C-alpha cells in the first residue's frame, strides 16, 4: 500500500494545497504510478484547525476514500516523533516541502532511519514551471558486515495538470480587489470600429471616436477596448481588470490587467492611450519591475498596450534590448503576442 507524506505549510497555503492537489491527481491519472491509499499529514502546533482543514479538504476532494493520518510535531523542523507507525517505510512517497531544513531532515531520515532499512521511496518535486513534477525514485538496501546502506536514485519528470489559479495568487496581495473579466465570443461592434481607427487612423481620430462612442475618459475607453480584445483570446484562462494592491484595502497600487495563460504564465498588462513617446518609455521602464505576486518571476511577463502608431514609434526610436522583457503591443497584435508567450517554452 502506497502512502503520500505531506508537510503542511504555514505560509502561502494556497500554493501548498495546489501542489498537494496536483500531485494526488497525477497519482490517479499516470500509468506506472501506484495508487495512493493513505496520506500522512505532518504539521506543528502553530497550525490552526482551519489551516489543517484546508489541506484535509484538498485531499478528500481528490479521493474521499483516502485514509488520512495526522501527526503533530514539536516544530516543523524537529520531527523527532516521526517514527514507529508514522515512520518512513517502503513504498512511501514524499511531496517535498519548501524549507531546506525539512528537505535535509527527510534525506537524513531516508539514509539513517531504523524504520526504513530496505525498499523504495519516491520524492515528488513540483517544478516552478507549473507544468511538470519531477519524481525521484530511491532504492535502499542495507548490506555488508557493517550494515551500511546503499542508495540508488533515479529521476523521472512527469507532466501534470494545471491546478494553480491566478485568483488564489491575487487574492492575498490585492485583498480581492479586482474585476473578473469573462470570455467573449466576439468583440462588440463599437470596439471593432475603435480598433480599426486605432490601427489605421490618427491619434486625434481615435480620441474623438472613443470619447464620442465609448467613454468620456479616453484612457478608460481604451482600457475597455483592450479588455474586449483580451476576452476573446483562447490562450487565456483568467483575466482580471483594475487589480488593486495594498494592505487593509488601502490600494497603494492599481494595475490595469493581470491575466493567466493556458501554459500558466502571468502577464501584467498596462494600457496607455497617449501621443507622447515619453509616457510610453516611462511605462516600459516601470513594467520591467517584478509585481508584488508570490509566483516564479520566470513566468511573469509584461505587455504595454497602446495604439499601433505609438507601438511602432517606440520600436523605431528606442533601444529594443534595453528592456527585452517588456513587450509593447498595439490593439491588433496583442493577442498574437499572448499566443506566442503561451506557446513558448521558458523565458522571453
Amino acid at each position, binding site marked *: 500500500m502506497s502512502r503520500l507524506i505531506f508537510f503542511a505549510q504555514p505560509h502561502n497555503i494556497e500554493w501548498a494545497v495546489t501542489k498537494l492537489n496536483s500531485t494526488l491527481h497525477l497519482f490517479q491519472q499516470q500509468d506506472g504510478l501506484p495508487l495512493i491509499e493513505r496520506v500522512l499529514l505532518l504539521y506543528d502546533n502553530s497550525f490552526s484547525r482551519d489551516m489543517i482543514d484546508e489541506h484535509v479538504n484538498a485531499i478528500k476532494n481528490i479521493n474521499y476514500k483516502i485514509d488520512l493520518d495526522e501527526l503533530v510535531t514539536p516544530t516543523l523542523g524537529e520531527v523527532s516523533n516521526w517514527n514507529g507507525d508514522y515512520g518512513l517505510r517502503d513504498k512511501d512517497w514524499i511531496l*517535498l516541502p519548501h524549507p*531546506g*531544513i525539512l*528537505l*535535509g*531532515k527527510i*534525506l*537524513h531520515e531516508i*539514509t539513517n532511519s531504523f524504520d526504513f532499512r530496505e525498499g523504495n521511496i519516491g*520524492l515528488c*518535486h513540483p*517544478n*516552478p514551471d507549473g507544468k511538470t513534477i*519531477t519524481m*525521484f525514485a*530511491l532504492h535502499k538496501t542495507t548490506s555488508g558486515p557493517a550494515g*551500511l*546502506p*546503499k*542508495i*540508488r*536514485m*533515479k*529521476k523521472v519528470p512527469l507532466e501534470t495538470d494545471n491546478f494553480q489559479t491566478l485568483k488564489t495568487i491575487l487574492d492575498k*496581495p490585492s485583498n480581492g480587489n479586482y474585476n473578473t473579466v469573462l470570455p467573449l465570443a466576439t468583440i462588440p461592434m463599437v470596439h471593432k470600429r475603435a480598433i480599426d481607427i486605432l490601427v489605421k487612423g490618427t491619434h486625434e481620430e481615435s480620441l474623438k471616436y472613443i470619447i464620442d462612442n465609448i467613454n468620456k475618459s479616453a484612457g478608460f475607453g481604451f482600457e475597455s477596448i483592450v479588455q474586449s480584445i483580451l476576452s476573446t483570446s483562447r490562450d487565456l484562462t483568467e483575466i482580471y481588470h483594475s487589480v488593486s*494592491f*495594498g*494592505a487593509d484595502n*488601502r*490600494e*497603494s*497600487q492599481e494595475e490595469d490587467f493581470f491575466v493567466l495563460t493556458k501554459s500558466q504564465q502571468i502577464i501584467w498588462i498596462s494600457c496607455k492611450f497617449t501621443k507622447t513617446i515619453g509616457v510610453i518609455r*516611462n511605462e516600459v*521602464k*516601470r513594467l*520591467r*519591475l*517584478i509585481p*508584488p505576486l508570490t509566483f516564479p518571476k520566470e513566468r511573469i511577463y509584461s505587455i504595454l498596450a497602446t495604439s499601433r502608431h505609438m507601438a511602432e514609434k517606440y520600436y523605431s526610436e528606442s533601444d529594443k534590448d534595453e528592456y527585452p522583457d517588456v513587450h509593447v503591443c498595439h490593439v491588433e497584435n496583442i493577442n498574437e503576442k499572448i499566443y506566442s508567450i503561451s506557446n513558448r517554452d521558458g523565458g522571453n
Partner: protein
Amino acid sequence: MQVAVFPSGLSSLNTLQCCLSFISEGDNWTCWIISTPETRSACERFEEYNPKIKAIFHDDLEEELEKANDDIEFNFLVGPSTREEQLRTLSLLFNHSYIPKFWFIEESPGRKNEKRFLSSYTDTKIPMSILEKTVVRSVLLADDLSFIQANRIIWDVQSSRFIYNIQFPNNASRFGKIKIRDFQDEALGIFQEAQKRFGKHAVEGRHPPLGRFGWHQNAHDRFQQAGFRGGR
C-alpha cells in the same frame, strides 16, 4: 578527508560564506561547489580566492566522483540553489555509493552572524565565518562593484547581506502623488536589480520613516509590499 559538497545558489556570497565556514573546521576539510551556467563564473572566482574551494561544473561532477579517493567523507549542505540542482547533485553521490552527512543553515530571524550556524542533523554545529568587506570586494565583478557604489549599497558584515538604504532628495516632502510613485519605481528598480545580481535573500532594502516627508500610508504599503523595511 572531509569534503563539503553542495550546489551554489544565486546568493553567491552566501555560498562563499558556507564554503569558508566548512573549511575553517580543519586542514582535512575542502569544499566542492557545484556550479550551473548561471553560477559558474562566481564559483570560479571563489576557487581563485581560496584554493581549498573547488568549483565543479554540474556536468563534470560524475567524472570527479569516479576519480575520488575512497577515504572521502561527503557532507551535503541543503539550502543553497534550486531543489532540482540539489537533488541532481545528491543523486550522483548516492549512485556512486556515497551516503553524505546532511547539513542545513540554522539562523535566527535577525540573521546576525553570531546566531548563524551550519548544523548537522546529529547536533554538530559550525559557526558561520565572517565575510569582511575586503573579501567581498575581492570576489565581486567590477561591474557589480560599480553598481553598489553608484547606488550606495553597502555590505553589512554582521548580517552578511547587502543593505540598500534609499536615498531621499531634500525636496522629497514636496513630492506629489505621481512623483512619489516615480521615485518608488526607481527605488524598486535598484532593489530588484541588486537582488538579481546578488540573490534575493542577500539584499535588504531599507527606508527612513516616511512620515518625515509627509508621505501617505500608501507609499509605505508599497515599499513594504516590495520587501523594504522601514517605518511609517
